[in-house]
């Protein structure tokens, strides 16, 4: 039993008049919701992204057959008319398949490559980075040189080589993209982790004997996480575009699977006659990446407690102050 248990619990030098009902901080969901709603552009981007995710999850269930139904009578029909049925409102491809349906199905494929790649590279890169940044010394040097090696290869070229040697399956694509993106997270996490070492609360944790792992887990990770999420959002765009490029080059997703990049690639030869074959998948890529970028910019401000006020402050008043020098009450 500690000495503290024996001490009568009496408030010493208690602060009189302090109210415990201080402005309660709206934690969790409602705070973020408010921050998001205040920035209309970011809110729109979030809606768009939400729609994209929903499409990826639910879409293939609803329109799966339409995407693969070959209908040679309807090949290469132009979009924006309903004369060929509502499913073909965005036109059809050379095999008569509905563009709209294929876009929806491709959405799932594209995201199922981009998201795992981002997650893997984020987790592995951040873990190594935080570990290296905590210990400094040779561990840090080693990690940074490994990152340098990876970064010195043009990532797309590396992907091309790897996928050419091994078969271009979805898993391989994910792996290659993940490896080439690790350095970004590694360097960011290392820099933040190294900076945190000089913070007083980390010293405080050391004074009561916290082990390095628990310090990383308890102190470094929660603080580094917002930055990493922002980086991940931006990286998501890059990975999506990379996958599209690979598919465009023919070593990404292979038919009969379909991704947006592959659709753009397949529409290449019809650019003059059937522009919609490449245009709509390209548009889908652009909309998704732009929304993700906007959301990343918002997240950058929202997750930084020092900058958060920019999203909550009302607009500047137009009225100037009085020049008459009258005293205000």
């Amino acid at each position: 039993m500690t000495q503290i248990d024996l001490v009568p619990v009496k408030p010493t030098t208690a602060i009189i008049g302090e109210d415990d009902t201080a402005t309660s901080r709206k934690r969790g969901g409602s705070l973020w919701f408010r921050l998001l709603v205040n920035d209309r552009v970011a809110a729109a981007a979030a809606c768009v992204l939400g729609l994209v995710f929903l499409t990826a999850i639910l879409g293939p269930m609803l329109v799966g057959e339409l995407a693969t139904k070959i209908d040679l009578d309807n090949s290469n029909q132009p979009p924006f008319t309903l004369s060929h049925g509502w499913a073909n409102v965005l036109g059809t491809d050379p095999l008569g398949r509905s563009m709209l349906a294929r876009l929806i199905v491709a959405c799932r494929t594209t995201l199922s490559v981009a998201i795992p790649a981002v997650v893997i590279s984020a987790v592995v890169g951040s873990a190594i980075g935080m570990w290296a940044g905590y210990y400094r010394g040779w561990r840090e040097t080693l990690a940074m040189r490994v990152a340098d090696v990876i970064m010195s290869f043009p990532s797309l070229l590396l992907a091309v080589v790897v996928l050419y040697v091994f078969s271009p399956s979805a898993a391989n694509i994910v792996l290659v993209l993940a490896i080439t993106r690790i350095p970004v997270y590694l360097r960011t996490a290392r820099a933040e982790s190294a900076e945190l070492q000089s913070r007083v609360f980390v010293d405080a944790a050391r004074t009561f004997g916290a082990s390095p792992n628990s310090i990383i887990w308890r102190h470094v990770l929660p603080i580094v996480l917002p930055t990493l999420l922002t980086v991940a959002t931006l990286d998501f765009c890059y990975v999506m575009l990379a996958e599209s490029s690979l598919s465009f080059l023919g070593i990404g997703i292979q038919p009969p699977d379909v991704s947006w990049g592959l659709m753009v690639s397949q529409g290449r030869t019809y650019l003059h006659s059937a522009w919609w074959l490449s245009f709509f998948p390209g548009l889908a890529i652009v909309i998704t990446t732009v929304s993700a970028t906007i959301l990343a910019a918002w997240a950058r401000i929202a997750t930084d407690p020092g900058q958060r006020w920019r999203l909550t402050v009302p607009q500047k008043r137009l009225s100037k102050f009085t020049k008459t020098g009258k005293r205000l009450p």
Partner: protein
Amino acid sequence: MSENLLEVRDVRKSFRVPHAGKNKLCALDGITLDLKRGETLGLVGESGCGKSTLARTLMMLERPDEGTVRFDGVDPFSLKGADLLKFRRRVQMVFQDPYASLNSRMSAAEIIAEPWRSHKGIVQNRQDRDMRVRGLLDLVGLGAKAAGKYPQEFSGGQRQRIGIARALALNPDVIVCDEPVSALDLSVQAQVLNLLNDLQEQLQISYIFISHDLSVVRHVADRVAVMYLGRIIENGPTERVFERSSHPYTAALMSAAPTLDGAQRAQRILLKGEVPSPIDPPSGCRFRTRCWKATDVCATTTPAAAVDPEFADHTALCHHPLLLEGSGRETVPA
């Protein structure tokens, strides 16, 4: 068991500095001090004197190059692993900056309970932990409702109380207070100082109280040690050191600090120049470059401890101590 809870003997610590070439930054140069149970030792000095390094060394965040530290007869730097971990419970720290010393993403309860996560076995289960957290919050004068709040929701003084509660969590014998009230407003300073005082009476904790504010140190410390460029240049009972300083630097410090009744001060000593760099400190007595009593011997020989004739435990490292000038010198063999 010796009477002293903490004994520091001739501790030295240097750091290698990137731009200083072969020279090292000598942060601590022969520190010797004692601390008894239930006593408060004030540590006073300006920037660059090494008091932060000393605090970190006592907290075992730095290892001394030479010298010994004895805590209840045990040398903590000789311990390893589980023994060292158990030992850390006996010395805790309250930090200066109430805004930087708390992780703003942890609630007050989590902050206070964090030490227990590294020392398994103190708390039995969740209820036990919550009860102890509540007890500590009450002890420092914060209500139970404070447990779930985050640091941003507290004022500076309240955050410092959380820091004190965290330092008490492991029931230490010694708390090193590194400028605990410097960042606080005046009215809040008084509250926190009163709290520290009450806690000492109730729990018999010893404090090492580091501060640059002389009026605060005078109020809280039983004994005071004045540091300059890595050395303790004066050491003795608080009232004696303040009233009848022996070392010229101490006298200058007392004179320079503004006080409410300063208008009655006879003369203010204005030291010329600034503190020399600790990378290349002056030879012999380190204060000689700014001392108005310096003579040749001050440059050649490091001064030995000059003892106050009336108080045997009041010493000053000076060849020309103010207390003894004009009455012959009395030095203690080093």
